[in-house]
């Protein structure tokens, strides 16, 4: 089954938090572009 990478297994809480923060920010950025596309389309009318 899923094998956690060794770096992650050995990592401390700080690097885990950093990874979570990276993923969260990137996902939010993608969501913002998606929502922004609609906003732009509505405001452009």
């Amino acid at each position, binding site marked *: 089954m899923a094998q956690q990478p060794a770096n992650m297994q050995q990592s401390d809480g700080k690097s885990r938090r950093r*990874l979570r923060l990276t*993923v969260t920010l990137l996902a939010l*950025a993608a969501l913002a572009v998606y929502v922004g596309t609609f906003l732009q*389309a509505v405001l452009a*009318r």
Partner: protein
Amino acid sequence: MSHAATHDHHHDDHHGAPKNFFQRWCMSTNHKDIGTLYLIFSLVMLFIGGSFAMLIRAELFKPGMQLMQPYFFNEMTAMHALVMIFGAIMPAFVGLGNWMIPLMVGAPDMALPRMNNLSFWILPFAFFMLLSTLFLPGGAPAGGWTMYPPLSLQTGSLAYAVFAIHLMGISSIMGAINIIATILNMRAPGMDLMKMPVFVWSWLITAFLLIAVMPALAGAVTMLLTDKYFGTNFFNPGGGGDPVLYQHIFWFFGHPEVYIMILPAFGIISEIVPTFARKPIFGYKAMVFAIACIAFLSFIVWAHHMFAVGLPLGAEIFFMYATMLISVPTGVKVFNWVATMWGGSMTFETPMLFAIAFIILFTIGGFSGLMMSLVPADFQYHDTYFIVAHFHYVLVSGALFAIIAAAYYWLPKWTGNMYSEFWGKMHFWNSVIWVNVLFFPQHFLGLAGMPRRIPDYNVAFANFNMISSIGGFLFGASQLIFVGVLIHCAFFSKKKATERVWEGAKGLEWTVPSPAPYHTFEIPPVINDDELAHGHVND
């Protein structure tokens, strides 16, 4: 940093691949297996998309309607592009990234292995859905890959196509998040950003592009969907909407998408040329900044696809000059590849041959792109076969040749066997000759005024179309050699690959055995700058 950037191989294989086929390939969280899945998937899609192209070229072999109804021809042009862009080229780069990025930065796997599995397994379902539209009552999308309204609202099983594009987009965004998270968080100690291979840099920047523009495409096609099925009027002038708005949103995605398909190719060429020139890459920092610069410029040039819609003069001039600016960082890259080769101790194995062909043919495609950036000239070129010639030069002899070069370059590392150099070169010479026979005459057709996306044409265009079709059939057949070389290398080759494979190869991926063990770098490698391709960049 005294000893080499090797690591303790005994730690690599203490637990190998699962024996169960389903568990290994369907539930895999291993970056190498998922990379292999992506690459096999993209090869299958290449042949499906290629078969659509063969049908198109067969219909265009001579004037008059030969083989198919016009609507089916339109389905083929739209599906060929969608399959090749989203099914062949992009997944191939993701597969190469999956395989090589962790190996190149000294990480044991991708940062998010389960999401990696999901990113891949979404794709076959997306393409099953997209291809199934060919057999549905509404037919497949037939309004081109750009899906401009109102035409796209009148053709094809739009809901299926839109859902398939959403799935592809989700897969790409998850893949991009994974790649960024891996590169930023999982590098081995000592692998500074400015020591990373150019391929890793190119993927890091490409991943940011993906996150920035794929949701815009998702938004655009969602609006198409709501316009068709839920009574909205985003693009319907009758309800106060604007079809040109779709074009702006689409190309805000579409132009960076072009760079999504070429920046990783730049990275690949920047790995291969130094290896076979046996010299460090010329101007490493300039190469990295040029990629970043191209990525930035890709956001401010989208309307050069729309010069003919009637933009304000100021906008046309802005987009013209912004587009011309792209040739500066691109020129830096081409100059640096040539400068890397200059005075090098060069050998011409198959990956290097494809890399050199890339540099020459991509530059031809780049020059025709520069011609189109001129607003007055673009009115002449717009929607002609000149455009078709241009983007096939950058995507086939550009992106695809780079992917093939990468496959030959890393195949010994993946399989542990050497491929047949003779058949590799046969593949190369056939590809490079026939790709030019296929696409070069299309420049003349376009300049003479032949429009794109038509199943029939004036007899004046007959000769060049026939030459182009012959080139197309032979180029398609040449790719069967590639499949033969891959199968032979993976299963039948007796010649074992060494750890380093190529004499001039540098970087962490060449410090692990060939084939690369199922698990690598479980203990982070000790970095020795001498062993890295760009370890002394600041010296």
